[in-house]
């Protein structure tokens, strides 16, 4: 795209959206948000970056193949479900631990790992489709 303003703003916009998407992912358990919506926001950010600077730049920026990201997400989600088997509770039962870092209690759970998996699958799958469409669109 030719617009200089858009090209200049796009990286900042994408970084902000990605950051925001992670924020939405993490707050999801108690307030509106979650892995799915967070993933969609991140994909929108990537799409903006792609429109501004071309697909190659985006592929370079995310380093991994989008489908590899999606695969990792699916794997993480499955692992999150399997962990509960080790605690002798049914598959996919949420497990929580509360380690404290520097006096601050930090709730961690398999549920969060699962939601992160959802996030990665959404980011990976949809950006893979969007990027490949964009790539050939110009021909």
């Amino acid at each position, binding site marked *: 795209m030719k617009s200089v303003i858009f090209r200049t703003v796009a990286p900042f916009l994408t970084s902000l959206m990605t950051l925001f998407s992670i924020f939405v992912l993490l707050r999801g358990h108690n307030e509106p948000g*979650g892995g799915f919506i967070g993933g969609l926001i991140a994909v929108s950010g990537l799409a903006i970056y792609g429109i501004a600077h071309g697909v190659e730049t985006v592929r370079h920026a995310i380093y991994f193949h989008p489908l590899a990201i999606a695969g990792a997400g699916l794997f993480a989600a499955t692992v999150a479900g399997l962990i509960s088997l080790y605690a002798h509770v049914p598959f996919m039962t949420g497990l929580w631990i509360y380690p404290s870092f520097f006096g601050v209690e930090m709730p961690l759970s398999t549920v969060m790992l699962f939601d992160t998996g959802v996030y990665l699958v959404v980011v990976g799958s949809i950006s893979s489709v969007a990027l490949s469409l964009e790539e050939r669109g110009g021909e």
Partner: protein
Amino acid sequence: MDIAALTFLALGLPFVAALVAPVLTRFLGHNAAWILALAPVAIFAHFLRYLPEIADGEIVTGGYAWIPSFNVSFSWLIDGLSLTFALLISGIGALIVLYSGGYLKGHPHQGRFFSFILMFMGSMQGLVLSDSFLMLFVFWELTSITSFLLIGFDHRREAARRAALQALVVTGGGGLLLLAGLLILWNVSGITQFSLLLSFGAELKESPFYLAALLLVLGGAFTKSAQFPFHFWLPNAMEAPTPVSAYLHSATMVKAGVYLLMRLNPVLGGTPEWQVLLPLFGVATLVSGAALAVRQTDLKLMLAYTTMASLGLLVLLTGLGSPHAIEAAALYLVAHALFKGALFMVAGIIDHETGARDLTKLGGLRSAMPLTFAIALAAALSMGGLPPFFGFLAKEEIYEALSSFDRRSVVFAGLTILGNALMFAVAFAIALKPFLGSKVETPRHAHEAPVLLWLGPAILALKGLSIASMSGLAHRLISSPMSSAIAGEPRAVTTSLAPHIGVPLLLSAVTLLVGVAFYLNLDRLRAAMAVILADIGWGPDRGFDQFIRGLLRLAVAVTRRLQSGKLDVYMTVVFVLVAVVLLATPAHFGELPRAPFFAADVPTHELAIMAIAVAGLLAVVMAADRLTAIVSLGIQGFAVAVIFLLYGAPDLSFTQFMIETLSVVVLALVMTRLRLSPSDRRPLHQKLPDSMIALACGFGFGLFLLRATGTPFDATLTDFYNLYSKSVAHGANVVNVIIVDFRGTDTLGEIAVVMITGLAILSLVRLRAGSLKRGADDRQDVEERA
């Protein structure tokens, strides 16, 4: 460790050995056989410990719960029948592993071969020891699959691939019949274990489902045990390396069907249907197998057809069901496993050492291979039923069973003598012709086989001799318990080598004379058989090909019909169906909404938002080009998102916003990909049907939603989630907690679908015009072959 746990380990050990086999072979080469053979030897030793107990008439069962909710267990049943089989499988298995060490020495995939054959051993062992129906079925199909792998071991040859596939289709398909049969037995009796079924009594035989169950079980048994007319896969399976033929296709797997019949004899046997069907198929298989064996000159094929004949004989005897017939079946089964295994291995040795296995291209090997000659002769004497070999005892017992003088027995006895005489001729053709006469030049210079090769057949041949000479002990430990298990009541086998004058001996002598006559005129017989077969000109083997071709043609025709390959056809079908379901179903059941209702006081801002949505839709319809239409569709979507927000569903609204944004982006990208013309320039009469379908769908959804919201709201679930979301799942956002915790497994499935869809779209996008064309060529290819 208790003996039950050890039995469990014994069931698993072959699979463990199969796992380590490739690594071991990489380090030790063909000598890995010595170590790998320890697995079956250990199993053999384990089962030997059961012998005294079983000989005293005990039945040992054991196992673990598998799927308790379906009453399915992983359990085993050890009685005379399954113990004999287990000993044969592990004993011959050990010898076969050693033999394969020599036979495939230096083969690049020897490790893989060991792995396959050990997996097969584990499956076969599981099959015969299974107590639960489902376990039997699983192992049954596992033997089919491992046999597929073994037959197709040399997968670069077309013939091997075809034979492997054929065996899989026939025996695997039979396995499905067997499953159906077992399910009927389960339904009628409510029992899932053989050990309990055996004491269930005569009720099964009187059930109206008896015949159906019997036919299905016979379908499984006859395909596995290569009964006429399902025999054709067995000779084709000779494409496999010889150790496989010796093990699977003579000693063990093909006996699985016979095993099943013997196992079910007390439950299903003794009825008129049983006593007609089994002997008929058995005797047809016996005679046709023996006749086809005479026709061949290839050592392995001759043996394969005699195996088929022997299986027929076993089915015949099991079907007759008289005490002597059962005992004869027990004796002959063991004897056959020993002599046929040995003969196959001899054929393999000849092939391996001379490079030829055609009878007409072999001769005068006696001086080069004296040991092999001796082994072959010993095995052939047993197969021919001559004293002092085990085969003689079996044959005496067979004739004892057939020597009552009613009309049926006379016919069966006559046909059995014919079949046995033909087998006698074939046995000695294999044991004598390659070794006697003048020396024939062979592709490889003949010399005696190495120890790994001759050890197996030598032991088997010697066993045939030693069992016969110690018949008392053998009967007490093996034959009597086995006959008792088949008969379902205590039996004692007494036959021995001691001379006893009677009808059986006379019939034996007749067989011997006719057999010698056949042997002397073998070439003339072969020519006659060739003429007969050429006159028939059609066989089940060709029938199989025709069947597969027909199936392919049908599949292509159906696919052509249903899959036009045109996107607009698919879309039209889908949406017409949606409209019909939405409109016709409620109309039929009188479930249409009473009347469209409008809330009395809708706030102005809500009305405004709805107006925006409508305006968006109008813009879509009136848009001059497609890109505008896509963007306008977004207007309507955003308006809906705002409505969600107003009604207190921030998550939903949030998602809707993102989805709308991304859809516009993706749709716009797709537009550019598809190279559509910028606007829809079709004439009205083409647009009209599509818009009618669209209207019908929209109208249907509207009615559906009105009806759904018209029903009183059941708040049970809402209350449940509100109550437990924070206390159990530690989350205040109920929607998210439902997605990731309460219904997490659903979500896992959904994200898997998302990922697969992503993969599918990616591959579609990557498809180029050229590769599409190649797909079409492939399809043409299939048709041409069909």
